[in-house]
């Protein structure tokens, strides 16, 4: 590639990627009732706060935002702890047939979500978990386990066994061994797994629209979809404001924990 061709290519790509983002912001600034019916290219108004408030309150993005925050934080953390315990059992403790347990737990990541949906729906309907926060939290936690387990197990196998042996000789219990030796030493890995799970749960749409219905339970992506379907009533500026709101947490996580975030997704690659 010649030098100038390269510059043209890069600038072109940057523009192509910038334009939708730019339009997102500019059009989220227009007052909802002044939207001209066509995308606007120049920022002439500043009604961002009004649009954000409309999306947050009236379109109920706010309550589902809180729901999703709970789901993503609690289920991400629970999934990582449960996965770390299982990894600890498979790698460190004398459990029989560790490979079989590994594959049993890891198998959960291989399949497309669609294969779980219909039976889960039936299961939830039978046990009154349908359209409940607890129900969504259970599936999000379970969904987080296999991959977090895979990440953490791989990390645990790199820990020198001498550490564990020394602690055992000193009379440490399993619990102490886990919480005071393995968890602190694996903290960056656990963090990466958590951030990966947080993002995955936050971005989930499929479980949200399948297993819940009411705004008090729905996760934020499901609420955004509802808002988008009611396009005519609220108008593009409010919908775009909603899209801005739901992007904030993952953008923040990405910008603040860039290293951990990239580790989380790049390990996904293996």
């Amino acid at each position, binding site marked *: *590639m010649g030098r100038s061709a*390269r510059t043209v290519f*890069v600038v072109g*790509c*940057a523009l192509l*990627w910038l334009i*939708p*983002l730019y*339009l997102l912001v500019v059009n989220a600034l227009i007052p909802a009732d002044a939207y001209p019916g066509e*995308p606007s290219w120049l920022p002439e108004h500043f009604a961002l706060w009004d649009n954000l408030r409309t999306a947050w309150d009236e379109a109920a993005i706010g309550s589902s935002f809180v729901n999703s925050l709970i789901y993503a934080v609690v289920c991400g953390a629970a999934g990582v702890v*449960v996965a770390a315990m299982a990894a600890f059992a498979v*790698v*460190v403790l*004398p*459990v029989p047939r560790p490979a079989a*347990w590994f594959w*049993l737990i890891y*198998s*959960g990541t291989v*399949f*497309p979500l*669609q*294969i*779980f*949906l*219909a*039976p*889960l729906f039936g*299961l939830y309907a039978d046990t009154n978990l349908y359209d409940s926060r607890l129900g969504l939290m259970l599936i999000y936690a379970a*969904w987080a*386990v296999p991959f977090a*387990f895979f990440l953490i197990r*791989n*990390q*645990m*196998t*790199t820990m020198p*066994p001498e550490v564990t*042996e020394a602690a*055992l000789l000193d009379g440490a219990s*399993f619990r102490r061994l886990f919480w005071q030796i393995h968890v602190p030493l694996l903290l960056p*890995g656990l963090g990466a797994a958590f951030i990966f799970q947080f993002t995955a749960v936050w*971005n989930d*749409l499929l479980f949200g*629209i*399948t297993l819940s219905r009411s705004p008090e339970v729905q996760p934020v992506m499901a609420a*955004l979809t509802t808002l*988008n379907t009611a*396009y005519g009533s609220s108008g593009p500026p409010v*919908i*775009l404001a909603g*899209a801005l709101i*739901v*992007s904030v947490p*993952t953008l923040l996580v*990405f910008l603040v924990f860039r290293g951990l975030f*990239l580790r989380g997704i*790049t390990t996904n*690659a*293996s």
Partner: protein
Amino acid sequence: MSAFTTGRPRRRIPVRTPAGGARHNGRQSRKMGGPLAAFPWLLPALALVGVLLVYPFFRSVYGSLFEDNGFSRSFVGLDNYSRLAEDPIFSRSLLNTLMWVAGTLLLPVLLGLLIAVATYRMRFGGVAQLLVVLPYAISGAATAVLWNFMLTTDGAVNQMLRAFGLDGLTHSWLLEWPHNTLAMIVASTWQGTGLNVVLFVIGLRAIPRETVEAASLDGASGWRMFLYVTLPQLRAVTVVVVGMAIVNSLKAFDMIWILTKGGPSRSSETLALTMYRETFRLFHVGYGSAIAVVLTVIVVASAWLYLRRQMPDSARN
């Protein structure tokens, strides 16, 4: 390759675990409390995964053998599967799925590679990279909402085309097949390319400087350098990127659900969408399960075949 195998032991010697040591050592085995002492640690994971993932998986496979409308069901054996073969919606949805696989292989992988190579060590290259990566950090649903705004009939894309005097190219992007599927592939390229850029840049950083220097001493530059030095060194990353693209494109759902709901008249459905509509909108639960099984077989088989062929030996075991 290290970035993709974080945590995997770099040494190729068998890893000695304390548990392994304890098994050969009676005194310590007693200290570790026998084999059953470890089960409480495994139990929460087994319960969650077993009840909410493994059981539904087998239940889906079993359920695909029934005619089931959500209220009553009867055993029909493999009828659901033979119905699939004749269903025009299934074949359209299979075609769309193939378009998604081809499209998301070609565009985001190729663009990701080109952008990574072009911006690498370029002045302000980091800015361009960040712009391309930003959409990856926002969710699929938000991206879909944004692109809905771009692609509607009086949306930004048509507006731009008209501004450049290309009126002939305007379309009702989301209302005609195959334009809707193609437009959505472009939208998901916009979102997904960033991840590939990141992965390729990580790969580029791992290329030893000596290799590049030696090649340029031998007179390689520009295109030849790219083709004979850079590209082969990026092989490991490319394997991963392509593998992920295959699996993810087979599962494409969010974008399509929000932009077209698979319509109009189910023309833009992929297998993931068809399964969802049959099961939860039309209450053909057994039929939907059969589609889910087919999708699963395709995903698992293609991932397995691809990885088996492409993985370097060291990563295979």
